[in-house]
């Protein structure tokens, strides 16, 4: 209250009694309250508007929420405002009169805070109970279940009497059962506890917990505790699934970042410190394509995949032809030279684009979550990137196993002299292999642009992880990279809740050091002649 008053003093252009005429004094008062600058008064106005059953209530509340319902300062009346180039095109809410175009200073937004916003959400949910669309009714009952309000119980009873959709009926019965836990009759409470068996909603669990702790009747307490234990088992089971998904998704990012390196380092034996910057180039390619077609974020993201492959691949071929080929067999010099290249690439991006991070938009299909049940939900961006990493892995695997290039790559990796004797142009194969590995790094950059910040330092944060995955998995083995990446991701996510993000990372590193001590060739060591190389 105190704060609200202060805000009142803070905002200039205070409202006097607004001249609104709807013919209904109660409704007039509600509109005056909505135009008030005190958030508590405004919230009361929202409630009053809903209670009045005004035919345009939904429209008005949505307008208040999204800012299209505004106050015209010249006449102090509510208007509908549409943003345009010259200013706001405004129309009177009550008379419908077109008031022309006004500058934004004259058409003020009606400020709302989280309290008002929450009240509008609740009000819209309660109005949605009468919606002809069963999905909206279901969402409305869900919202009421999430924030139980005793005043809404009669509404739910009315709904249940006429409801035909089985899903909505079931959820409504749950919401009513939660309220029956507070009934004075012990048998009623016991029946309510049974009705809530196996429900995973947080509200149900909290209500059962309260009953198990505080109910007057020992039988009810025991029944509630029993149901709670059963529910808890399920929750634990889903929590495990969730951790596994988080781990696999974190691991799939590692796999994506490392898989290009598995080619250049694993197959060719080149220590490429600029690998991270090739990832960064892929991410920047995504950004640039998105800048070129700002209205189509989804299409531009898909286009960015081949584009990033080409950009990073060409950059990789350039690096190989320009620098690395002179340094084969000299790992230390290669390391230094590629480190230098990584700094050059970073500075290039800083100078040409911006030293600051650039915003890459997430298309609609990459945001949001897939709610499997009240305790398990998977975010779409992680889900797609997990699938994407498997596709990239499978594609790369097929290239190496099924194409002529793959055959030549494997031949040169196993025995360069023999391959050349058989007519393989090893220099060309080296360039193409390096280009392939670099191109895959670029593709990884596209995926990373959806998860993390795109900036000149993007590559640096992944280079160490990438080497870690390749070495842990076994140099020269693609399967090793996949298994190592996914298992490191899962290990990290299992440790994280228990030890915190910082310590989890350290523990994983310590584990890898110990592991490499014991099995210096990684999880899947190369066998046969290639192992000597």
């Amino acid at each position, binding site marked *: 209250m105190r704060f609200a008053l202060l805000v009142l003093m803070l905002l200039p252009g205070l409202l006097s009694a607004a001249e609104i005429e709807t013919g209904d004094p109660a409704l007039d008062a509600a509109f005056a309250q909505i135009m008030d600058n005190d958030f508590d008064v405004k919230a009361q106005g929202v409630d009053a508007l809903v209670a009045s059953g005004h035919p345009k209530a939904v429209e008005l509340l949505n307008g208040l929420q999204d800012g299209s319902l505004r106050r015209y300062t010249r006449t102090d009346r509510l208007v509908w405002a549409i943003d345009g180039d010259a200013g706001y095109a405004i129309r009177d809410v009550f008379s419908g009169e077109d008031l022309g175009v006004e500058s934004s200073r004259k058409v003020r937004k009606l400020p709302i805070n*989280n309290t008002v916003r929450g009240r509008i959400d609740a009000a819209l949910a309660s109005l949605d109970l009468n919606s002809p669309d069963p999905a909206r009714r279901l969402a409305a009952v869900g919202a009421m279940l999430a924030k139980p309000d005793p005043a809404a119980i009669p509404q739910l009873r009315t709904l249940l009497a006429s409801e035909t959709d089985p899903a909505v009926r079931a959820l409504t019965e749950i919401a009513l059962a939660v309220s029956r836990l507070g009934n004075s009759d012990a048998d009623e409470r016991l029946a309510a506890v049974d009705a809530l068996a196996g429900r995973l909603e947080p509200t149900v669990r909290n209500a059962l917990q309260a009953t198990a702790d505080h109910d007057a009747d020992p039988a009810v307490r025991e029944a509630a505790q029993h149901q709670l234990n059963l529910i808890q088992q399920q929750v634990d089971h889903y929590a495990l699934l969730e*951790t596994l998904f988080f781990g696999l998704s974190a691991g799939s990012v590692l796999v994506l970042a490392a898989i290009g390196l598995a080619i250049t380092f694993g197959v060719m034996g080149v220590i490429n410190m600029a690998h991270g910057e090739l990832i960064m180039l892929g991410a920047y390619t995504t950004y640039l394509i998105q800048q070129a077609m700002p209205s189509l974020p989804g299409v531009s993201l898909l286009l960015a995949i081949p584009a990033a492959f080409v950009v990073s691949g060409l950059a990789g071929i350039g690096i190989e032809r320009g620098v690395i080929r002179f340094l084969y067999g000299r790992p230390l010099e290669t390391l230094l030279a590629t480190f230098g290249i990584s700094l050059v690439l970073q500075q290039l991006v800083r100078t040409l684009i911006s030293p600051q*991070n*650039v915003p890459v938009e997430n298309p609609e299909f990459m945001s949001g979550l897939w709610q499997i049940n009240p305790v398990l939900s998977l975010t779409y961006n*992680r889900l797609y990137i997990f699938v994407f990493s498997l596709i990239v892995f499978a594609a790369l695997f097929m290239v190496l196993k099924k194409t002529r290039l793959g055959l030549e790559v494997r031949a040169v990796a196993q025995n360069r002299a023999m391959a050349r004797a058989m007519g393989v142009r090893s220099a060309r194969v080296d360039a193409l292999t390096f280009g392939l590995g670099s191109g895959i790094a670029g593709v990884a950059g596209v995926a990373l642009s959806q998860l993390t*910040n795109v900036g000149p*330092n993007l590559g640096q944060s992944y280079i160490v992880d990438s080497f870690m995955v390749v070495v842990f998995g076994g140099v020269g083995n693609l399967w090793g990279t996949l298994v190592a990446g996914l298992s490191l991701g899962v290990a990290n*996510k299992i440790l*994280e809740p228990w030890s*915190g993000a910082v310590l989890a990372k350290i523990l994983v590193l310590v584990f890898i050091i110990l592991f490499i001590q014991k099995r210096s060739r990684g999880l899947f060591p190369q066998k046969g002649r290639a192992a000597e190389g």
Partner: protein
Amino acid sequence: MALVANLKKLSLALAAAGALTASAFAQAEDTIKVGVLHSLSGTMAISETTLKDTMLMLIDEQNKKGGLLGKKLEAVVVDPASNWPLFAEKARELIAKEKVAATFGCWTSVSRKSVLPVFEELDSLLFYPVQYEGEESSKNVFYTGAAPNQQAIPAVDYLMDQGVTRWVLAGTDYVYPRTTNKILEAYLKAKGVAADDILINYTPFGHSDWQSIVADIKKFGSAGKKTAVVSTINGDANVPFYKELGNQGIAATDIPVVAFSVGEEELSGIDTKPLVGHLAAWNYFMSVEDDANDAFIEAWQKFIGSDNRVTNDPMEAHYIGFNMWVKAVEKAGTTDPAAVGDALIGVAVPNLTGGYSAMMPNHHITKPVLIGEIQDDGQFQVVSKTSGLVAGDAWSDYLDGSKDLIADWRAPLACGNYNVKTAKCSGQNF
């Protein structure tokens, strides 16, 4: 487009640098030098470059008004490159070689700690413009950013007013979040919050995989009590954090996040539609309607040559600090650091939110505290403002070992950490 803009910027910067050196030769004796110690490269360049430009603008404006004590002001800009030991070297260069009258600079606490001994040894003045963890008061440093009681505590009070009873304290793993969270934890417990209702979480700088932490927050918030997140997450890790919040469907009406390191500048790269209603606590917002603020924004956008550039809280802190220094120099009639340091205490200048800020004897200033909600245009809407000004408290009242300490640099006490119980000044320099 970006390329052209950058080339333009580059040539501007070169021209400015050329002009600076030229003027240094031309009028070496008739200028008062002002040091600007902000990172222009490295991780902190994102935030600090803006402050360097703010200082150049303020100095430029002062010169247009006729300078100071009849002399022109001259900015000496150095680049400590987000490298903490280099901050100390550059500070020494500014004071010993360039003989600056005062220095405006630093962002992270670790950079301030790095330059502190240099300023004390060479007895020069530093104006530090960023909100920080407190627990410090140096004779040579003037803290124009917020102390915890000017940002963190009022934000928590506001959320308590809104009915929040369960708290997640999430931060980046370094000194500012750790100290702030220690103070907040003690404060919440003093207010009767049970230990079970506080979840503390730290993540490394630049953390990008927020899925399990956000899922934990979601679980923690589903216990039937109103929950809020107090975020001291710093730097660009905020972008994936807020994205994950949006993806996992955590709306501000369910679990509001109040941030202490997210301002207009940080939001300028993010789509803020999913973040509407999340909060930030500062002493200044660009959206505050005030004539002085409008003039400042206009001057800034004209100086930087873009209508899209935003202003933020540390910029206001430099505005206040610089004007205080100018006023104190005029009062003392000299730029001698000792005299100016004494004259600074008690100086009051207008801030940009419609009031006056004054320098306290503990070298902190008085400020109003504003809580704002993020809007879909990347600006904040003020939802709460303290009734009066809050004086910065160097030593927190909620931590053992610091609640008995006070700082008062006026004679005869002249101590940054005077223990009122033992009636002793510990003797350490800060």
